[in-house]
């Protein structure tokens, strides 16, 4: 037919219009932008971040701009926007702005300064705790999802137990026994490591074969660990550990992080399990990519969406948990200020000085709200099944 010849000789005289090229990030931003609440959340978060950083600079050091620790007993429980009684104050005790922007607490400290100091603490607690939990979660979930079918042999388990026992004995001062145990186990580990690469046809006596049996798969092991961790009611676990350990801000962050990785693990494992069967992973494998490359370069960007969402909401939860702990008396030790501290101190004066309760309470509410809005906005955009059809 004629058309075939014409078709092949045809050069394009006419240009077809093309849709504008957009990168994934632009596409994402266009969708995200439509959710006004999420934009509000993002905006407030940026505001909070700037306040926290500024607050850190303005309240730390030997002679800060806003001093959160300056006790002025003669000025206690002044309401917000009150002018200080200049006659009773020394020169350096006069608040920076000339009046108490948010009033004073029962020790006469400037609440505004304490709020600024507390902002930084809340921010750090949120980010560090969630950082820890996300890192652990991704690691555990990734291993469970990707290497799930690898089995752990009986001798591996035995060696781990003996290793821990040996270390424990050394720490409990029976150094000789501990050292002997440690040496034995380490030798066995090196031996098995080196022989793995050699021929597997070595003769193994039948009594020793038991040690080579596969005991449990990685997936089962990690999921059982998650189940064990989930059996402890989380707030109690945090409370227990925080009550038993010396109080410090780092302990709190680490404990909150160590008790909230389970959700992330489940998400990552579920995503990896489904991604592992997809064709693009098989394609990359046939090109010769090693395991690490596959996991970090190809699978992780696809699995990161639920992790991001739960991380954002996790920051909000961590801030609330820290406030709760401070309320119960287990938070960051005084005189360092956190928003939970201020609230907790204020609960004794709730009818006389309601601003001590309301100001940090509303501040926590707004910050946590902004994180939640932002996180939910992320979730709506990253999950195509839930997208608004505008």
């Amino acid at each position, binding site marked *: 037919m004629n058309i075939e010849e014409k078709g092949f000789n045809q050069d394009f005289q006419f240009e077809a219009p093309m849709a504008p090229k957009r990168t994934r990030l632009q596409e994402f931003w266009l969708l995200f932008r439509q959710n006004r609440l999420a934009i509000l959340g993002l905006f407030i978060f940026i505001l909070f971040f700037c306040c926290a950083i500024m607050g850190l600079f303005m309240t730390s050091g030997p002679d800060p701009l806003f001093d959160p620790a300056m006790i002025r007993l003669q000025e206690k429980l002044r309401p917000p926007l009150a002018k200080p009684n200049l006659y009773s104050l020394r020169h350096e005790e006069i608040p920076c702005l000339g009046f108490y922007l948010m009033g004073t607490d029962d020790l006469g400290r400037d609440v505004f300064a304490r709020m600024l100091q507390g902002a930084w603490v809340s921010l750090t607690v949120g980010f560090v705790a969630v950082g820890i939990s996300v890192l652990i979660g991704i690691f555990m979930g990734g291993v469970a999802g990707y290497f799930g079918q690898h089995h752990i042999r009986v001798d591996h388990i035995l060696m781990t137990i003996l290793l821990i026992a040996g270390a424990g004995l050394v720490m409990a001062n029976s150094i000789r026994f501990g050292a002997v145990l440690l040496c034995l186990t380490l030798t066995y580990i090196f031996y098995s490591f080196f022989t793995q690469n050699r021929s597997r046809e070595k003769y193994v006596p039948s009594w020793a074969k038991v040690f080579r049996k596969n005991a449990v798969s990685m997936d089962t092991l990690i999921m059982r660990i998650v189940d064990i961790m989930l059996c402890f009611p989380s707030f109690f676990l945090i409370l227990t550990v925080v009550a038993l350990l010396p109080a410090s801000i780092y302990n709190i962050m680490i404990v909150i992080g160590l008790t909230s990785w389970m959700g992330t693990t489940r998400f990552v494992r579920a995503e990896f399990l489904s991604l592992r069967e997809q064709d693009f992973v098989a394609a990359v494998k046939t090109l010769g990519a090693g395991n690490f490359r596959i996991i970090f370069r190809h699978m992780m960007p696809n699995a990161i969406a639920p992790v991001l969402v739960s991380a954002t909401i996790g920051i909000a939860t961590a801030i609330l948990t820290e406030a709760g702990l401070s*309320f*119960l008396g287990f938070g960051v030790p005084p005189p360092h200020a956190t928003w939970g501290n201020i609230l907790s101190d204020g609960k004794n004066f709730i009818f006389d000085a309601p601003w001590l309760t309301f100001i940090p309470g509303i501040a926590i509410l707004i910050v*946590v*709200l902004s994180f939640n809005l932002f996180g939910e906005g992320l979730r709506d955009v990253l999950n195509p099944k839930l997208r608004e059809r505008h």
Partner: protein
Amino acid sequence: MLSFIGRSVVQKIITLFFVSIVSFLIIHIAPGKPSQVDPMNPKFTPEVVERFRKEFHLDKPLHVQYLYFYKDLFTGETVSWKDNQSVLKKIWERFLNSLPLFIVGTIITWTLSFPIGIRSAIFRGQFYDRSATFLSYLLISIPGFFFAYVLIIFVVNQFHVPVIGMETFGIGDGASLPYIFMDRIWHLLLPSVLGATGGIAVLSRYVRSQMLEVEGQDYIRTARAKGLPPEQVHYKHALRNALLPFVTMFGLILPGLIGGSVIIESIFSWPGMGRMAYEAILARDYPVILTVNFVSAILVLAGTFISDLLYLIVDPRIRL
């Protein structure tokens, strides 16, 4: 089916065993001693401390202590170090106190969340959905104790709702049964509403997102193409599929019995399990802490087991 149950139970028991070991280790490895045993405590002379240690096997190595403790636990003889009462009796009493709070709170939460969530999903993007969404975010974000104080300040002054304890002081035996009953309910009101609001916020969002996901499926389009009126499409076809994960969640509310809320119970001076566990932690009352932990682990495992079972029953796609 039977093999699944058998396998599941065995796995849960193994997990329980490990939980008991881990919680035991956490308590004993953490620095510090129980206050009664602390040589610094001025109330106790050294001989009393020594007797205490012998009595509770604190001088023996860890694994022996472990065995002693769990033997006592299973024979019901564990004794609290603080006030020498039987731990199981204490837990039972406090459990009975926490139970009404928990039941009322759960009923309020589950009966309100579903209509709100479903309606939000059906009228997506409209005023109802937007206001429900915003309210949910607000309730999720507010710190519990702050919200409690706000409620207390505004509600108590207006309506004279009680905020302390489970019953009015001195109500004694003089009052008639209906009066006691109403009094209890009146005391129950504020704490359970407080507990429920957070739960409603979270659950209704989840219900909404499940409904939305189901509404986007092809079989909903088929149902509409058959000429079904919208109510039937939503409440017969969509809901039945959307509710599947919630049936399983139902089993998981069991652990909430113990979790309770330390904060709510502290604020309202409600003598419940949360506060007991909190006080035990403060006093390093090891038996109580470990027993509460153990019971909570049992509840969690039982709850997961029930959810798995329910899921088997309800979803026709899964038949073992």
